[in-house]
C-alpha cells in the first residue's frame, strides 16, 4: 500500500513538473539562428547588431508608433497597449521566459507589429538586430 501511494505520488509530481514547466518549442537563440539563416541570403549581410536593434526598437519609422509605444523604453518592464491600455508582459527574454520560444508566434507578432510601426513587414536583418538587442537587456 505504501509503495502504491509513493508511486502515485511520484507520478503526480512528474506530471506537475511537466505542467509547471511547459516545454518550449524553441529557445530565443534558436529563433535568432533561424533569422540568421534567412538574412544570410540577403546581399551585404554582415551579422546582427544589438546597437542597431536598440536604435530600431526606440525609433519611429514614419508612422505614429514605435516599438516602445507599447513595450516602453525598457524591454524588461511590463508594457501597456497604446490604444487599449491592456497590460503587456515584458518583451525581453530575461524578464519573461516565454518570449521568443515559439517561432510561429514570433513571426505572427513581427508581421503584425512591423505593419503597425513601419507599414510593412520587417526584414530578417531587422528582426535579428532587434532580437539581438532584446537578448542583451538584463532584468
Amino acid at each position, binding site marked *: 500500500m505504501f509503495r502504491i501511494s509513493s508511486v502515485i505520488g511520484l507520478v503526480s509530481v512528474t506530471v506537475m513538473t511537466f505542467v509547471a514547466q511547459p516545454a518550449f518549442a524553441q529557445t530565443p537563440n534558436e529563433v535568432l539562428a533561424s533569422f540568421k539563416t534567412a538574412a544570410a541570403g540577403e546581399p551585404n549581410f554582415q551579422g546582427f547588431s544589438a546597437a542597431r536593434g536598440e536604435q530600431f526598437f526606440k525609433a519611429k519609422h514614419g508612422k505614429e508608433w514605435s516599438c516602445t509605444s507599447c513595450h516602453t523604453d525598457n524591454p524588461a518592464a511590463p508594457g501597456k497597449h497604446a490604444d*487599449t491600455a*491592456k497590460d503587456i508582459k515584458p518583451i525581453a527574454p530575461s524578464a519573461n521566459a516565454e518570449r521568443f520560444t515559439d517561432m510561429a508566434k514570433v513571426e505572427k507578432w513581427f508581421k*503584425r507589429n512591423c*505593419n503597425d510601426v513601419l507599414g510593412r513587414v520587417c526584414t530578417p536583418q531587422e528582426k535579428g538586430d532587434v532580437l539581438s538587442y532584446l537578448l542583451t537587456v538584463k532584468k
Partner: protein
Amino acid sequence: MLKTYKKFPQVAVVAVLAMGVAVSVAQADDDGDDDARGAGRSESRGEGHSGKYGGEDRGKPVQPAKLNAKWKQECSNCHIAYSPGLLPAESWRKVMAGLDKHFGSDASLDAQENKEITAFLVDNASNRWHAPTAPLRITESAWFKSKHDSHEISPSVWKDPKVKSAANCQACHTTAESGDYSERNIKMPR
C-alpha cells in the same frame, strides 16, 4: 424576512459553489431589464416595434458556458476577449474579415485560426439583436450607448487615465474578462 437576510451570505456562497463560478458568471444579468419586452412595455416606452434598444440588444447570456480556447488566447492580447453576445453575428463576420486592419492595428490570424474563432463568435452572437444593423464597434450599439450615457457615466470617468479607452471594459467591470458585466461587479476607478 430578517432571518433570510442574515443567512444571505452563507446561502450565496453555497449557491455559487453549487452552480460553478463559470456558469453563474456567464449567465449573470442582474440589470433587471428582462421584463422590458413583455406586455407591450417597450412600445409604451416609445422604443418602436423592433424591441428593446431599437433591436440592438446584447445577448443573454452574453458569454456561453463553453468557451473556445483559441478565441480566449488570440482575442485577449491587445484587449480582453470580448464576449460573443455583445454583438450580432454579422458584426463578428465583418470584424473577422478585416483583422489585417483592426481599428488601426494589424491583428491578422492564419486561415484556420480565423475560421475557428469566427465560428465560435457567430454561434454565440447576440440572440436578442433584431435590428438589421451590424456595427463594428461594441460602443456603437444602442444597448451600449444607453447603458453608458452621461446619466449613467460622468464624462470625467472616460477621461480617467485608468480608463483611457472604452475598449478597456475591465477598468470598471472588474470581472469583464470572465464575461461578467453585472452591476454588482462594477467598481469605478478612483
